[in-house]
């Protein structure tokens, strides 16, 4: 579970005294905090009593006693049941231990600088860090983009500080926080939220949940800035990275942020956090059920897990939404069903490997054999395609390009390719309604339907189909040839008659070009040299193949002679 981002300022205000006269050009991190305090005192003073009221239920949640919270007040469950100690966080204990050790060692040796936590949103990455900080009495410095944008106007009016771009405020923040002194001293003097019980702070970390919005122009600067920070900081920095697909990040995303030399050195550690498991989610949800005194069918846990895909935050929110409606039915609607995106390669892999349901867990209702006694396929091709996020022609090209590698029998492959051809044809008839869906279904099922003797499972690289490149080169060549054709028929020497200046180049290429190369090589060859083509290799490859042909012929003759079959016709 993760703390709502809005919540942090509120808490600060609730716990710390207001310091309106805080020095203006001081530590940026504290400046941020101060701005924050100021703004809240100005804008949200009306909310103070409301918040006071809310505080009590949250305390209850901390102790998980349930108690008197049966009435539905406005608090979101996600806030109310925010875990307060590390044991409540739904991250695998092993990972927690790893993170704890990393931070502790980083504080001592100052060699480890940057920890990157990668994982889908809502699985407790930030919450884990916060809980760890609480447990070990570390102070957290956070940067939040909205601070600089929202309050800079106010800030400049009050403190005559120039308006800052989010990037420069980020820079300032990193510079100040990275030294590791200011935050400590100021935190303690300003009685900040992270030091709630008044005890001694034993260290500080920087927590980055978001980075300044990146534009083309600023990206390089951000990267320099960040790399510089990683190199020089004396405070361990934790970066939360949740821009992931199926729990995996793209290497280039991180590499565009930090110099790869640093990223893969000892300075940095990239840690994958897995989504919440079924048991963990059930544990958390059942705590809520007890606290809220609800009665729910037991299957709801599994259902919620499936629908949220391990995203605990969304699961709890969904849960509350459904509990509010008092209609605790399982699998009621797909309104709350989040679209599960499959990475394109995952989707294509599914279609190409065409795994089948194994006999072990068959459900007699939905399990029926195919006509030829094969068990049904393990997935729904239409759904897979829908979630893959690639457009249809791309899917078809990918499948077609890679399918031969999965077959061992040519006639099965031929049937599959015939189906792809059907699908391509349907895609072209966009005027017929439903043809696109039919095309997708055909394409998705082609491999599964015909591949009875798949080749042995092995790892296969799914590369982009060559046909894209072919089409591109072809278009360029076409333009090129048209120019050539045109110039031949219009230039002074009039190699071709004017009539051939019109029309497609196809006849020119198929009928004339190769003869023209022999008749007037001087005007043709030069312009052909710039073409995208490996065709010029043809002459060579043909001669070699002719050799091969005669070689084969000889070989055959030899065999036939050995077999004593006479009268072999060499033609």
């Amino acid at each position, binding site marked *: 579970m993760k703390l709502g981002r809005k919540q942090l300022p509120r808490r600060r205000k609730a716990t710390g005294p207001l310091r309106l006269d805080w020095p203006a050009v001081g530590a940026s991190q504290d400046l941020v905090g101060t701005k924050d305090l100021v703004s809240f005192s100005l804008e949200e003073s009306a909310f103070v009593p409301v918040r006071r009221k809310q505080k009590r239920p949250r305390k209850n949640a901390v102790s998980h006693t349930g108690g008197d919270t049966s009435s539905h007040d406005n608090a979101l469950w996600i806030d109310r049941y925010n875990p307060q100690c590390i044991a409540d966080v739904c991250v695998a204990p092993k990972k927690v231990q790893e993170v704890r050790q990393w931070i502790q060692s980083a504080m001592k040796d100052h060699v480890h600088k940057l920890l990157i936590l990668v994982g889908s949103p809502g699985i407790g990455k930030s919450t884990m860090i916060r809980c760890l900080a609480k447990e070990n009495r570390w102070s957290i410095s956070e940067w939040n983009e909205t601070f600089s944008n929202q309050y800079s106007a106010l800030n400049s009016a009050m403190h005559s500080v120039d308006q800052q771009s989010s990037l420069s405020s980020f820079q300032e923040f990193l510079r100040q926080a990275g030294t590791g002194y200011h935050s400590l001293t100021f935190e303690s003097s300003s009685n900040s939220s992270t030091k709630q019980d008044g005890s001694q702070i034993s260290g500080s970390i920087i927590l980055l949940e978001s980075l300044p919005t990146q534009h083309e122009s600023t990206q390089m600067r951000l990267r320099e800035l960040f790399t510089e920070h990683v190199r020089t900081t004396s405070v361990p920095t934790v970066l939360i990275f949740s821009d992931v697909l199926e729990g995996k990040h793209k290497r280039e995303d991180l590499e565009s942020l930090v110099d790869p030399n640093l990223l893969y050195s000892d300075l940095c550690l990239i840690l994958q956090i897995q989504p919440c498991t079924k048991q963990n989610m059930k544990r958390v949800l059942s705590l809520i059920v007890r606290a809220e005194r609800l009665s729910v069918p037991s299957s709801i846990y599994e259902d919620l897990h499936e629908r949220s895909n391990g995203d605990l935050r969304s699961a709890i929110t969904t849960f509350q939404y459904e509990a509010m409606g008092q209609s605790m039915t399982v699998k009621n609607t797909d309104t709350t069903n989040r679209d599960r995106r499959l990475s394109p390669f995952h989707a294509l892999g599914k279609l190409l490997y065409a795994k089948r349901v194994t006999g072990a867990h068959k459900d007699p209702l939905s399990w029926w054999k195919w006509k030829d006694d094969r068990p049904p396929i393990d997935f729904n091709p239409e759904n897979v395609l829908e979630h893959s996020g690639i457009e249809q022609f791309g899917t078809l090209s990918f499948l077609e390009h890679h399918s031969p590698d999965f077959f061992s029998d040519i006639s099965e492959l031929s049937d599959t*390719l015939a189906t792809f051809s059907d699908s391509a044809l349907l895609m072209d008839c966009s005027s017929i309604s439903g043809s696109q869906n039919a095309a997708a279904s055909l394409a998705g099922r082609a491999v599964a339907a015909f591949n009875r003797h798949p080749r042995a499972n092995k790892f296969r690289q799914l590369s982009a189909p060559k046909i894209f490149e072919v089409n591109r080169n072809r278009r360029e060549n076409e333009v090129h040839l048209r120019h050539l054709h045109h110039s031949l028929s219009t230039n002074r020497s009039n190699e071709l008659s004017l009539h051939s200046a019109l029309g497609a180049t196809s006849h020119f290429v198929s009928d004339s070009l190769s003869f023209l190369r022999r008749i007037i090589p001087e005007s043709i060859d030069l312009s052909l040299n710039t073409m995208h083509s490996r065709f010029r290799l043809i002459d060579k490859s*043909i001669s070699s193949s002719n050799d091969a042909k005669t070689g084969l012929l000889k070989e055959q003759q030899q065999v036939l002679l050995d077999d004593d079959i006479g009268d072999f016709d060499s033609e």
Partner: protein
Amino acid sequence: MLWVDKYRPVKLDDLSYHDTISQRLSSLASNPESMPHLFFYGPAGAGKKTRITALLGSLYGPGASRLKLDKRTFTTPTKRTVELNMITSNYHIEISPGDAGLNDRFVIQDVIKEMASNKNVGASATSSERKSGAATFKTVVLVEVDRLSRQAQAALRRTMEKYASTCRLILVCNNQSKVIEPVRSRCLGIRVAAPTEDEICKVLKSVSINESFMLPDELAINIARESSRNVRRAILMLEACYVQKRGALTKDQPVQKTDWELYINQLAVEITREQTPQRLMAAREKLYELLVNCIPANVIIKTLAKELMKNLDDSLKREVIEWAAFYEHRISLGSKEIFHLEAFVAKFMAVYKKYLNDLFA
């Protein structure tokens, strides 16, 4: 200048084969007012354009052969500009509206409207200059009509009726089945068939006499055979042979085919040698290569089928040719050629493999 263009007949009387067509055309030209829209169709290199040029010559006199190349820009209703080449004389205009791609419809309407609204120069000239019996209409020659989109063909159909009094259309294409029925029915269809090999030999002979070199009969026959009854190609082949041997042609010298035909031949050999998914992947590379070089997919499949036929058992020929026709049709229906090409290759492999297995089982 290439021999192809140098020895192109310019008068209807000079045309060397299809005499009945030539006679019909000259009777049309002698009475121009009765000339309907014309629709020439037939395979490439059969002499459609040559006949049209000759016809225009006898309709308008020598003025029709003073050509110049114009570049026109058209503006579509969506404010896109399309640039198009056209060949014009005072009497006629020749365009390939298919070059305009998706905007062909507007081009057709614009051009014909414009041509029809301006009177023919010959008709408005004083009677002394005017050749008696000369046509009073202008002519629009539309080449490659089979590349036109459906919408453009429909536009053509309406425009044809509207301006029939002041302008005549001559449509040219290879495959008449790609032109919609209403357009075809508004025209007088003239099929220019490919010449026979004997006729091509005669053409080649006449070229050799004009260029005054010796063309051995055997070589002429060889060229005619290899040209697949395409006169343009035959004359180009002859010239290529001539250049290669520097004028001294021998009767047994090899006739060079086009490079891409050799390439397809190689492909055919490969797929008959081995039928596995791996071989298919290798064959696919060759198909890519051909496509990159702008060889049209339907030409590839046609040539490939012919090459495969050569070494095939008779019992298989029917099935293979049927599949070739099937996929050729698909290629012409859609835009995603590679899928159909590969499906054909795979199908051939499957059929052939089955045949081999049955043979040895």
